[in-house]
């Protein structure tokens, strides 16, 4: 009974065979590796028509994809910092990495919003 109630937080058992770049997943709890399914599901729902349904596995897959996206972009941004002998990855580096990796559609609205 208790397990069922906590089914969303028991994500650590649902590996779904995802391969992660980092080899230290054994140490990091599954929940820490992914963004919360509720948040991810909400964003998905908002973009879909009202009559659309989303399977739980689809949300879980999306969670995995987002984490991979973060790793992928961060890796690129971090490489740039390293080459430029900077220690801190900042917002501009992320925007740059997004544009470099083909997500220029995201970079422009982001830059406009961040501009302070």
């Amino acid at each position, binding site marked *: 009974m208790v397990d069922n109630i906590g089914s969303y937080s028991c994500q650590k058992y649902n590996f779904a065979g995802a391969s992660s770049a980092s080899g230290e997943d054994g140490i990091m709890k599954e929940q820490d590796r992914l963004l919360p399914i509720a948040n991810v599901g909400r964003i*998905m729902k908002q973009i879909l028509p009202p009559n659309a349904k989303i399977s739980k596995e689809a949300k879980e897959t999306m969670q995995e994809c987002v984490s991979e996206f973060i790793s992928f972009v961060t*890796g690129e941004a971090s490489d740039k910092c390293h080459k430029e002998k900077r220690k801190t*990855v*900042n917002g501009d580096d*992320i925007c740059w990495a997004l544009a470099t990796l083909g997500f220029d559609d995201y970079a422009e609205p982001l830059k406009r919003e961040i501009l302070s």
Partner: protein
Amino acid sequence: MRQAGRYSGMLCGGLSGRSGPHSLPLARIKKIMKKSGDDVKMISGEAPIVFSKACELFIEELTQRSWMVTMQGKRRTLHKDDVASAVIATDIFDFLVNLVDNNSSNSMDNPEDISS
């Protein structure tokens, strides 16, 4: 700290000291960023905020593309396979190809298999 709107808050106040509601948890994003590589040591305050928006856009795009596959199949429930198809069909999502491939081959009939 409540803002009139997420975006107007970003434009007017910049990002320093802004701790208003985001759709994705910043601390978790930061954890995932740190896990992406040993090089990633220091992350500026605004980087997770930038990612919060970028991830939202990413989820929206992948969801929309997946939904198109769902509709082609004349279905109303977005399935994990639809996400996989969308990934395969989109160049910029190439980095996810292995991820969705592992997902579909490891969890064939029992998506909630407990594997450790």
